[in-house]
């Protein structure tokens, strides 16, 4: 069965081809079946292969299957070959399962959209590209998948192209991720030129063998790969495109901008962790960037009015946590948080989609309210997701994944107290803005009317995801609460465990309690500020400092403003000024000169014979002069 590995990406690709070529002529139901079906079938195949892979001894190593050699030229021969190991199996399962649920959801969500086939074609292409990215065994094929997902995110953000704002947001997303990708591709060149291969496994072996820890080459290579990761995972400084990416349909945000694409950066760093281990400076930078991003995004989420933008900033901050985990060397904890985050964040987005659809595209939280009674299922599933996001202790899986990261942030060799403190502050912020959102939307008096209730096709995915985001956490329990190591054991073959100095073990319990306390305090604060006594928040916001702070956070801490002034404006003005290409001026000058000479000379042709005789005389004098004196 495992030989059919190539079938996983092939199925959605086949779906894409059929839909893009013949989609407009097929009836809507066939399009839906094809679109969702291809991903569903691929999910089934993935599960089967997963079961076979886990039960077989292969789980310790990896299984590679070459489909065709893409190019072979004097030693450089990247091939289109897929490699399955525990890390990529996890990614494949998450992508296909969550992908299928979202496809199922969008069958109904996009039901009344006229470009139905185009939507499903792009979604299938995205799933293909993501699977190629995840299953690629060499960096060049990974880069193909990498750019493919970037393309699909561009196409899907700009799906409703009639509104220029969406098209601009799509372009902004593609250009910003492209800036990161360029850094990454230069990293590829560096790796190939110094280590002679791009095949990931072989590359890591040679890197460890050739480069001592902390060597300049390793640091530069890791930094360049980090550029790519930052761009794609919307971390500081390349994060401003994600909030604008909410212009796309909500299932798109759920799939691309929550579950899969934005975590490609995390996957890349996890996949090439040996290289990052060789470059401690860069790994530390990853941690610091993670913390900084989670704080910045946390604060920004606090001030948002638009439901989807809150979720976008919350995604950025949760990926900040994953970067923090990667930074301190807790690779499996990061992947664990990725899996859990995929579940509850796509749940929250789908819930938001249901809310938006039922209130006729009302996205401003302050105009929603009291939907608790009108949309019960959505409320309870949304609450489960929110709780998991806010890391409600013991019962939600979000708690276990975030707690593990906070614990390793403190205890790991590469971790430090400051990182832990940042993480805890972030956790507080997360719980505050999450429950602010919940209270504003579902509690208080109803400010909008509910026109339509989501159907079964939308509710089933919500329920499944809610269950997953509650239950999934129990496969990895911390030391003090039962010490279950199923997840990290499974990933142990690919990702090494976290190096913890001996003395720290005892503190795990205490830190766990602190994290739980912080989450509960956050929820209470949110209840207090936004439901019970909203005046306090309003009064605080009305003061001069409050208003400035509110605007700063609303603008995503001013990065957009900075880039607009620093990069976009100068580039556009220079281009506009030089539109007619100043180099052309020199050639115009030459032409002008020639014409001037012509006018001058033709003036000598006066038509008078005597002037010509003078010409002869002068000419004779010159020639005789030259002959005699030179």
């Amino acid at each position: 069965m495992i030989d059919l590995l190539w079938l996983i990406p092939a199925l959605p690709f086949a779906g894409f081809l059929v839909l893009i070529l013949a989609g407009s002529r097929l009836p809507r139901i066939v399009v839906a079946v094809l679109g969702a079906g291809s991903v569903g079938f691929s999910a089934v195949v993935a599960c089967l292969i997963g079961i076979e892979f886990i039960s077989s001894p292969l789980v310790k190593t990896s299984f590679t299957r070459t489909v065709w050699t893409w190019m072979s030229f004097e030693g450089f021969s990247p091939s289109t070959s897929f490699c399955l190991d525990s890390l990529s199996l996890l990614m494949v399962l998450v992508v296909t399962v969550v992908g299928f649920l979202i496809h199922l959801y969008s069958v109904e969500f996009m039901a009344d959209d006229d470009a139905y086939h185009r939507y499903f074609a792009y979604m299938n292409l995205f799933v293909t590209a993501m699977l190629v990215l995840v299953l690629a065994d060499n960096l060049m094929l990974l880069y193909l998948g990498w750019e493919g997902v970037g393309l699909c995110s561009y196409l899907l953000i700009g799906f409703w192209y009639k509104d220029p704002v969406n098209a601009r947001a799509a372009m902004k997303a593609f250009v910003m991720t492209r800036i990161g990708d360029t850094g990454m591709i230069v990293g590829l060149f560096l790796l190939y030129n110094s280590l002679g291969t791009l095949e990931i496994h072989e590359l890591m072996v040679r890197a460890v063998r050739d480069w001592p820890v902390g060597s300049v080459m390793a640091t530069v290579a890791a930094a360049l790969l980090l550029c790519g990761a930052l761009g794609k995972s919307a971390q500081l400084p390349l994060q401003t495109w994600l909030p604008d990416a909410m212009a796309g349909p909500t299932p798109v945000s759920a799939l691309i901008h929550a579950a899969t694409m934005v975590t490609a950066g995390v996957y890349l760093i996890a996949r090439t962790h040996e290289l990052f281990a060789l470059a401690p400076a860069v790994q530390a930078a990853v941690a610091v960037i993670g913390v900084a991003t989670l704080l910045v995004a946390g604060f920004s989420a606090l001030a948002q009015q638009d439901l989807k933008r809150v979720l976008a900033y919350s995604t950025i901050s949760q990926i900040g946590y994953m970067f923090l985990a990667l930074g301190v060397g807790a690779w499996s904890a990061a992947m664990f948080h990725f899996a859990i985050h995929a579940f509850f964040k796509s749940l929250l987005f789908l819930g938001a989609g249901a809310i938006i659809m039922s209130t006729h595209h009302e996205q401003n939280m302050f105009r929603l309210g009291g939907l608790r009674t009108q949309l019960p299922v959505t409320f309870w599933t949304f609450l489960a997701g929110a709780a998991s996001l806010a890391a409600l202790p013991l019962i939600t899986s979000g708690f276990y994944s975030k707690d593990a990261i906070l614990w390793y942030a403190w205890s790991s060799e590469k971790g430090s107290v400051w990182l832990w403190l940042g993480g805890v502050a972030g956790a507080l912020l997360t719980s505050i803005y999450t429950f602010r959102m919940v209270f504003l939307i579902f509690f208080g008096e109803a400010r909008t009317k509910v026109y339509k209730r989501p159907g079964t096709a939308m509710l089933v995915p919500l329920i499944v995801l809610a269950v997953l985001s509650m239950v999934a956490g129990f496969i990895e329990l911390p030391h003090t609460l039962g010490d279950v190591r199923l997840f990290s054991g499974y990933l142990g073959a690919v990702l090494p465990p976290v190096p913890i100095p001996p003395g720290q073990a005892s503190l795990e319990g205490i830190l766990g309690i602190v994290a739980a306390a912080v989450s509960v305090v956050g929820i209470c604060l949110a209840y207090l500020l936004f439901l019970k006594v909203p005046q306090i928040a309003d009064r605080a916001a009305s003061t001069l400092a409050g208003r400035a702070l509110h605007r700063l956070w609303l603008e995503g801490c001013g990065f957009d403003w900075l880039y607009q002034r620093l990069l976009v404006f100068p580039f556009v003005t220079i281009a506009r000024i030089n539109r007619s290409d100043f180099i052309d001026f020199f050639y115009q000058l030459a032409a002008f000169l020639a014409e001037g000479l012509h006018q001058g000379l033709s003036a000598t042709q006066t038509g008078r014979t005597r002037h010509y005789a003078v010409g002869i005389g002068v000419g004779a004098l010159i020639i005789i002069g030259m002959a005699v004196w030179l």
Partner: protein
Amino acid sequence: MNAVQLFALTPLIVLSASSVVLMLLIAFSRRHVTVAFMTAAGLLATFLCLPAVYPDLPQQVTPLIVLDGYAVFFIGLTLAAAFALVLISYPYLQNRPGRPEEYYLLLLLASLGAAVVAASSHFAAFYIGLEILSVSLYAMIAYERWSLMRLEAGVKYLILAAVSSAFLLFGIALIYAQFGSMEFSAIAARAAEGGITALVGSAMVLVGVGFKLALAPFHMWTADVYEGAPPPVTAYIATVSKGAVFALLLRYVNQYDVLASPQVLLVLTAVAVASMVVGNLLALMQNNVKRILAYSSIAHLGYLLVALVAGGALALTVVSYYLVAYFVTTIAAFGVIAVLSTSERDAAPIDDYRGLAWRRPWLAGVFTAMLLSLAGIPLTAGFIGKFYVVASGVSSALWLLVATLAITSVIGLFYYLRLVAAMFEQVETHATAAREEPVGSFAATAVLAVLTLLLVVLGAYPAPFIRLIAATVSF
């Protein structure tokens, strides 16, 4: 002057005889077609004498004339050009008022003068040949004496040519004063002594010759005379008179190496550069086709001078080939103008040529081929000519001249293409001048067709012709 030498002179003799016979013929019958036929026959007869004479050359007939392969080649070229021009002039004169017969007489005499110049090895012979040529040209230019333009051109050319021949004579006198002989060989022998009078003399000779070749400082008359004269006569001036004089200059410089002194080479270089630059720049924005061709002929003589300055054995082949290409192109170009001209006025302004490609495609095709050849675009003889000149320039490392040639020929492209573009312009077909088919235009179109064919053959497959030149043209 033994029998062999006399036999060697037969081409000149036959030519003069035919002009005398023509004079008598005109006295008897004033019919245009017989006179034209007689002229053509005379030219053909002379042309046929050349191969007959060729085996026992070279012959130094009296110190004045030397008949060697070189002279025979250029006399042949002159005769061929004159023959073509007779065929072109016939329809041109046919539908013009006035008596056309004397024109052919002048043509024959001018050709005789040119032949003498090409074959002379003595300044006196050169002067006499030149004057025969010039005087008959004065009359030819002003032949249609009722048109003011012809008269103006005639008088201008007369006065300026006379002045330049005075300069030439004074130069010869000074050289004679210095070296005591006017034979090129004797002068060459004593050239090493040098001396101020000889230098000034050579300079003044150069002035006279420069005027005749319309080189840079003495070029001012060219445009007016070319525009004023009737197209066949302009063709004659641009080809035969310049060709013969240039042949002599080349013989004087190359065979006798008289002007090997650096000063004169420097002067020649300066004149060449000036001609190329002035010629091309003057033609840049010009709207009169005849004036454009006049200025471009100045530039082309500048290119020829590059080959002359380069010198060496290669110079002979280069100059001969280039002159042949230049002759073919210029005669065909002016032939087209002659065919297009009406009795009221010549087809000079560029507007007459707008959309010509769609009105008279064959004529436009010929004219485009000629313009491309002047510009030096491949598949035309002009390209091989230009390639040869650049090759000779590069072989003797005349970087300044080669660079000027490259730059000015790019400028030259501009106005050639402007003309070509005008012809291919999409112009709504307004009623053009009544296209009365001049009687006997069959001859003209035949000549144009032959010349275009020759141009393309010389351009695409010049090997046999180059072999012919290499064999014949030698001192």
